[in-house]
């Protein structure tokens, strides 16, 4: 879908900005909001570029830099922390050879931390794109990464 088609689905009023930004980001092959994305949104809503940028930079689900095809969001809030998300973070950093916020060289994975995902009953948990994973162990993480590699 091109940007115009996305924009046309919404009334050009600022209360739709989060929806528009969500859809623009999902549509971007690098899963982020590029300068062009922000520019077309600003023009469509008839607000300054800086306004859209300020909104986009406030919310953690939006990224202003290019990301990998699979965005890993590991929860590090207290419930997941209690159940061992700290060691999983080290494990993921090693397995992917990236730091927090980094993208693997092959462009397959970006590693991020997130606040509570609301699935604390199966902590530690992470989200990859729209899919939740819980009761994580290093072995389970390996299997999930392997599946994503195969599918990508």
């Amino acid at each position, binding site marked *: 879908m091109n940007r115009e088609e996305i924009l046309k689905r919404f009334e050009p009023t600022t209360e739709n*900005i*989060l929806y528009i930004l969500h859809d623009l980001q999902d549509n971007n092959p690098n899963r982020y909001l590029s300068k062009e994305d922000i520019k077309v949104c600003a023009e469509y809503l008839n607000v300054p570029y800086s306004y859209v940028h300020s909104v986009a930079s*406030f919310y953690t689900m939006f990224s202003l830099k290019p990301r990998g095809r699979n965005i890993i969001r590991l929860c*590090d809030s*207290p419930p997941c922390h*209690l159940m061992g998300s700290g060691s999983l973070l080290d494990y993921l950093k090693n397995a992917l050879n990236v730091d927090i916020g980094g993208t693997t060289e092959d462009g397959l994975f970006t590693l991020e931390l997130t606040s509570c995902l*609301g699935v604390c009953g*199966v902590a530690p948990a992470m989200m990859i794109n729209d899919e939740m994973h*819980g009761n994580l162990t290093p072995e389970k993480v390996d299997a999930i990464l392997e599946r994503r590699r195969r599918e990508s």
Partner: protein
Amino acid sequence: MSLVRNHILISIDAGTIMAGARAVEKALVDEIARQGLSDEVAVLETGSVGIIGKGVVLVVYPEGVYYGNVTPNDVPELVEEHLLKGRVLKRLVLTEGPKQYVVHKERVGLLKEQPRIVLRNCGIINPENIEEYIAEGGYEAVAKALSTMAAETVIEEIKASGLTGRGGAAFSTGLKWEFARRAPGDIKYIICNADEGEPGTFKDRLILEGDPHKLIEGMMIAGYAVGASFGFVYIRGEYSLSIERLEKAIKDARSYGLLGKGILNSNFSFDIKVMKGAGAYVCGEETALIESLEGKRGHPRNKPPYPVTEGLWGRPTVVNNVETLANVPEIIRNGSSWFRSYGTDKCPGTKVYTIIGKVANPGLIEAEMGTTLRDILYEYAGGIKTGKSFKCALVGGAAGAFLGPDMLDAKMDFVNLREYAAVLGSGAILVMDEGTDVVDMLKSIIHFFKHESCGHCVPCRLGTAQLTMIIDRIAESKGKKGDIEMLLKISEVMRDTAFCPLGQSLYLPVSSSLKYFREELLDHIQ
């Protein structure tokens, strides 16, 4: 019509989907057909049955047998044993004792004698079927209100019930509605706060996933009482199943004439729009949520004016939590004195808790206000999982307080816990055993606040940064003399001067952890 002899309820919520519930459901339907039982056995979807962390959960009726950790590979055996031969498949049964293989609700720890008001339909009806909600008495309350009660009478009834905000602030719901009703203006709004972000809390998600029509009905009644004809549900962006089910429920309600113009032949009109958040804890604060709904950064506003007089786009607005609104239809249907028969005098009704951490049965429970932490932990959640002893529980999420063993018998409700300098908050209970490193937990809490501080006010922005430096130092056993006093001092200043509850509430976990575990922190000081 053929008569079905067995119903299998399969719990489809974000947690069980993760464990493969959709694959198990498909395997069940296929296997039942393969064994020629399709006319006799029905597979039905429902929301969470309250059992969390036990994989895919099924309940087979009429026997009421609960199975857990079911995988597609188990399905042929399960169908053959239970549904063809009528024998319970013992190895998958969720049970407390080895001999109790037929498990009735009361026997599965988490469902023990729960008074269910908010969760009445959760795990029983199919949340995607409006007719099942109606069959359980759904939309009766709004019909009663529209046909027999004046708006003021509805407000009086809610006031008399003593219902208070279940998001944590515990403000009288009836009073809030009354303020908004009396505020001048033709256009008013109802907002449902479903931006559930408090760590450890997922009750609103399970209500939305398990019984979305109840929320719609609660919002309709609120709209009628306040004089609003439009409502918004602000849901966090990560809750995709909640969004999907609520949007379907709204569509279905519209097609049944329950939302729209002239509802049930009255002159009341109401409609609801779902708005999706984008990841910001601070948007759980009502004025920040309103800013976000208006399409801005989610910074909290000055109060007063309160949203009841100047809220969304400057109009009188009621912001209520999901659980609060889910209580409303039951109160209108059964009356305020019925509601008051639950809970305590000062705090009537029930509270929905999520209990997690080092417990045997993590899950979603509803208990009367005033239930003790001991009862919730040992009676409902099966005690500590690890066989170790109880160290403490963080009650109310990251913005809550640590409660030690001396608090196990304190009655938990909004009023009583405040007397112990603790809060009930969102109802999250994170249980820690004696092996837990409290310094590490406190570090995690402070990091959470630093990450989520919106940067709007100085005490919170700089305070969380300073606290992070200090706690990181302590966690590495490089703490300096005076660090502990500084932790307390900074969080105290934040409590007194931060702009919104986010910054103000960090004092609670800091001060309560020091109350119980000062020695442990001191061990990390050089």
